[in-house]
């Protein structure tokens, strides 16, 4: 096994600032690939911004906003192949869109409609995980299982800075290290866990430092630099496929929106800092990069945004046209062969629903 060094402290960046800091380049990404990446970023951004509007209009329920997290999601997915498995948290709820999942499916999840379930094997995307960090061992297990079968697939788990405090994170990371599982631990360090700042979450200097304790490399990237994320995840995936085991990638960004639609961050967040971070948000930075490179112009931007907006328009229309679920759904799916009592329960429920109080 390669010697494990302390995590890289400096944030890796590829995108310059259009001024003093020059743009870098990622080997192997041609013009088409660069534009495809942009398409994914815009799709996620559009999904997110529309969802906040849909929530206000009462068309979806509580929603976990991922504004300014699009780069780490799109950058990572583009660095992987479709055979690789993604384990999202609620913050990556729409990541399946990048694997061809219909927008109506994800919107249904947030509408509390069972059409929001999917078969993970259809997209190689696990279910949206709500309890913090509890999916990290699942990703480690998937990766381990694929390794046992000699398959080249890797797994990636997305989780937050707060998640690194949970036992499940530690256990999953440690398993991956011990099994040399082909796993990428992608930590979305947006520096807040609801109202809890990173400084109250850990005494470590960086989250990537934790990798040392699991015997795996840790890297830190600018999480709002889609190309830096892409490059780091591609390297991690190559190492994993070559039998080099897991990698911890700390993608550093800043949560510029409320934790979720129900949250009011004004009580705890520094609003000036939020404004600064909003000014350097990830889609705009990549947009500028592509324009400086000469592969993006207003016409293409317009076209890509139009496509995304249309996908969401169709998605919400489709989600809203679904019939209300039948009560029978309550009793389905928990068992291959439901215990007989459940059939009786359903019959009783139908009887009562059919009656009236009077």
């Amino acid at each position, binding site marked *: 096994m390669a010697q494990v060094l302390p995590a890289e402290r400096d944030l890796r960046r590829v995108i310059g600032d259009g001024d003093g800091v020059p743009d870098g380049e990622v080997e192997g990404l041609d013009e088409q690939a660069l534009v495809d990446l942009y398409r994914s970023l815009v799709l996620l951004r559009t999904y997110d911004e529309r969802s906040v509007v849909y929530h206000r209009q009462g068309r979806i329920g509580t929603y976990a906003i991922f504004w300014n997290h699009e780069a780490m999601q799109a950058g990572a997915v583009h660095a992987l192949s479709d055979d690789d498995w993604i384990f999202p948290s609620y913050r990556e709820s729409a990541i399946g869109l990048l694997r061809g999942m219909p927008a109506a499916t994800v919107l249904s999840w947030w509408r509390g409609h069972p059409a929001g379930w999917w078969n993970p094997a259809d997209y190689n995307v696990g279910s949206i995980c709500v309890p913090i960090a509890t999916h990290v061992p699942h990703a480690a297990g998937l990766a381990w299982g694929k390794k046992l079968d000699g398959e080249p697939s890797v797994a990636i788990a997305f989780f937050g800075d707060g998640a690194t405090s949970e036992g499940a994170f530690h256990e999953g990371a440690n398993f991956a290290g011990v099994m040399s599982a082909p796993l990428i631990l992608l930590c979305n360090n947006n520096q807040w866990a609801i109202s809890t700042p990173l400084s109250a979450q850990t005494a470590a200097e960086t989250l990537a430092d934790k990798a040392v304790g699991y015997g795996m490399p840790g890297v830190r990237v600018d999480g709002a630099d889609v190309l830096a994320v892409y490059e780091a995840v591609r390297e991690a995936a190559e190492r994993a496929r070559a039998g080099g085991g897991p990698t911890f990638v700390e993608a550093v960004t800043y949560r510029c929106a409320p934790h979720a639609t129900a949250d009011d961050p004004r009580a*705890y967040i520094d609003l000036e800092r939020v404004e600064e971070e909003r000014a350097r948000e990830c889609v705009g930075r990549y947009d500028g990069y592509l324009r400086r490179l000469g592969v993006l112009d207003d016409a293409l931007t317009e076209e890509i945004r139009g496509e995304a907006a249309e996908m969401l328009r169709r998605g919400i229309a489709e989600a809203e046209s679904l019939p209300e679920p039948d009560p029978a759904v309550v009793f389905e799916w928990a068992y291959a062969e439901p215990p007989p009592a*459940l059939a009786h329960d359903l019959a009783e429920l139908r009887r009562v629903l059919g009656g009236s109080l009077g």
Partner: protein
Amino acid sequence: MFSEGRLAELTLAEALNDALHVELERDERTLVMGEDVGRAGGVFRVTAGLRDRFGPDRCVDTPLAEAGIMGTAVGLCMAGWRPVCEMQYDAFSYPGLDQLITHVGRYRWRTGGRMEFPITVRMPYGGGVKAPELHEDSPETYYVHTPGVKVAIPSTPADAKGLLAAAIRDPDPVVVLEPKLHYRTMRGEVPEGEHVVPLGRARVAREGDDVTLVAYGSMVPLCEQAADALAGEASVEVLDIRSLRPLDEDALLASAAKTGRVVIVQEAPRTLGFAAELAAILAEKAILDLRGPVLRVTGYDVPFPFWKLEDYYLPSLERVVDAARRLLAF
């Protein structure tokens, strides 16, 4: 009950907040800890104002780790502190179950009763709030099933304050489940200042003669509605259990003896839910008083569904009334 006689009109969440202020004021060894309880004052604002009033060492934003919260609470007790731990939601207490079952409920026993572990664990629980997966569970069975742990579930603002105060003062670990559905929507008169509702006493929420509806927490208002709906047909008693352990068996048996008919309403899945325990007690001790079978209206033995389906899952007015009618006609 100790109270100073003056009443304030508070929501259930405000009543809990009031209890925390009073108890932290009263005992400087009491501290509040949990995820987002400090700077944000809790995601339901139950701990609002405590950090400003008592400082960040007595209202502590912890790392995101429920087993860590419950485990360090054990150690804090050994150091002479009295921790009040918040679990952010019902289902997010599950990572903490390990510590709760293996240590919180056993440590006093393991010391031959020589050391106290006055831990309070409080959390919002229950459905009807149209939230994503794992935000609407009713986990009381796990807690009541854990020896060494007491459990209280209030249904009114006054009881919320009084039972939380009792939990904090209790020498043993107490889990308090708070009906989140009613945090902000239920208002009621709450005694100002110190107010303690002793654990182990049920409350007759409504007196009646023909049938008893037994419930706790968010099912109590539902049973009261059912009593109204049945007003022309039967005289309905509503018994609010409010303390699951210790349990007021006398109140349960007295009501069963009076009406001879008992329907138990519980939001949690049916199998081995608390209603099953109450039904077993009635079978053991009240069989000659009963004029019909003990009926249960419960959630089903499936995961709490997507919220568009939650009204089918939750005990409804129709289901409770139907059960009462079936029993009256038995």
